[in-house]
């Protein structure tokens, strides 16, 4: 599906892919970040195992949101935090002694278990509440949670019941293809935006209806913390026109700096940084 077709609706932004790449460097698929959207879409579909259905749903959503301007902005989900309960009391000492890949910190009163497959860290309390962090998508969170509960059931013989699963927090990042004049931006929205250069180099913008907190930086990077992936997407769409007003085109030196930092971060990635087509999707 070619996401670059201009359609009638809305705001100048397409979510090229709510991709699930992220904290794992050197991942071959390097999902969702091609300058060529069609290729990206293909990569996506042949991509990571878990989120196939999720991605197609997202892609379907994306088509509806394309804009007259041919710009794509990718949102990368970096961290999904979920919490659930197994409804039984856990003996932390027993788990610490007999479990694999666990760590027991007595001063915090919790056991941390690290999973490899959806790469995640699960913190367990003796009340039976468990929090999983470090995931990259909502379905992966569900899988990881179930895996943890299953582990407790099978290996450690607990009578677990999987309940109260909810995604608590999702962290997403995206980069605008332009730099932003944050001083003027923060002055225009004094109630919603908080900019204290001494405390933090970015503007903290809170959107009440999505319960999202966005941090907007002068380089054009935006990080969003929201209760769900859909909320992250809507928050970025909401803020794009606001930020677009204060855009500042990047100079050659800035672009070089951005490309250099990307090359450092995604060492195995290809030459997508060297693209400077008109379709300048500055994606990661």
């Amino acid at each position: 599906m070619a996401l670059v077709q201009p359609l009638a609706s809305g705001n100048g932004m397409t979510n090229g892919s709510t991709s699930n790449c992220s904290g794992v460097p050197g991942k071959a698929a390097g999902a969702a970040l091609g300058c060529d959207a069609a290729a990206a879409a293909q990569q996506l579909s042949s991509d990571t195992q878990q989120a196939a259905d999720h991605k197609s749903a997202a892609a379907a959503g994306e088509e509806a949101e394309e804009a007259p301007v041919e710009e794509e902005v990718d949102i990368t989900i970096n961290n999904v935090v979920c919490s659930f309960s197994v409804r039984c009391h856990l003996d932390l000492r027993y788990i610490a002694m007999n479990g694999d890949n666990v760590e027991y910190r007595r001063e915090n009163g919790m056991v941390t278990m690290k999973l490899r497959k959806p790469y995640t860290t699960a913190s367990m309390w003796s009340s039976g509440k468990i929090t999983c962090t470090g995931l990259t998508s909502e379905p992966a969170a569900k899988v990881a949670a179930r895996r943890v509960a299953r582990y407790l059931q099978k290996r450690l013989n607990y009578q677990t019941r999987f309940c109260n699963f909810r995604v608590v927090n999702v962290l997403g990042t995206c980069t605008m293809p332009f730099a932003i004049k944050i001083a003027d931006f923060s002055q225009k929205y004094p109630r919603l935006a908080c900019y204290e250069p001494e405390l933090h180099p970015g503007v903290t913008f809170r959107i009440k209806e999505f319960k999202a907190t966005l941090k907007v930086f002068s380089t054009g990077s935006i990080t969003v913390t929201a209760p769900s992936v859909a909320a992250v997407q809507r928050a970025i769409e909401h803020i794009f026109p606001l930020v677009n007003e204060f855009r500042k085109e990047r100079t050659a030196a800035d672009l070089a700096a951005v490309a250099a930092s990307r090359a450092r971060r995604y060492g195995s990635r290809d030459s997508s940084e060297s693209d400077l087509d008109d379709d300048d999707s500055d994606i990661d």
Partner: protein
Amino acid sequence: MASSSGRKVQQIGCPAHPEAHLIEDYRAGDQICSVCGLVVGDRVIDVGSEWRTFSSDKNAADPSRVGGAENKLLGSSDLSTMIGDARGAASFTADGQSKYQNRRQMSSSDRALTNAFREIALMADRISLPRTIVDRSNNLFKQVHDGRNLKGRSNDAIASACLYISCRQEGVPRTFKEICAVSKISKKEIGRCFKLILKALDTTVDMITTGDFMSRFCANLRLPNYVQRAATYIARRAAKELDIVPGRSPISVAAAAIYMASQASEDKKTQKEIGDIAGVADVTIRQSYKLMLPRAAELFPPDFNFHTPIEDLPEL
């Protein structure tokens, strides 16, 4: 009126003119016959003030007052008398213990307020802030205290944040680091309280600009006036008009501008000296300076007297 008992009888009157109207002189305590001026009544109780006060005597205690002026910020309910510390021989019993051990307590909210006001005054005194800022700070603290949203936070932290906000509101902002230097609260905590207070009082503050700090930093570095003016111009050009330094804190830009201006003049300051005064790391000054140096020609004011020309400005 020194009228003795009885209704109509025995009103004091002038013996020569019994029907004459008596004028009262409160100041002297007299009643005087209006016709002949004879003083007929005396030792009338004087209702005037016991002491004279002159307007020049501002610092001297006002002897007409009983007790100190009422502080509007503290609760106006408290008009009680407090028993002070024991002094002199008479206040101790035979055992050597002080009589009157129980000092009457203030209400606890008043005590917290009094402590906080004292803390604010102490902090302000260390950096020589004027009375207006201290008063504004006290008002803010009282508002925050009454609102009770920040109840869990340490009072000292709230006091420091109130001081910071009042400096900002008066148009003479102090950096967080400067407030940290006179307070025992960490910068992080002051920053948190600052944001919470703004939210609780539903106010906003203006953004800091580079020019706010120029006079203080340059004075501390003892730079001549023309260097200060040049630095102010440079910083304003770099940050506002040309926007060469996106994302850099105005303090860092100001420090780099001072460095550039002083290096181009006779009195050259090192990055370390400027960093010490401004509370900025010298690598930070270096980074901002590197961004500003390529366009140095546009940054300097047109009438600047270059002791060291632009080409010879240090690269670092």
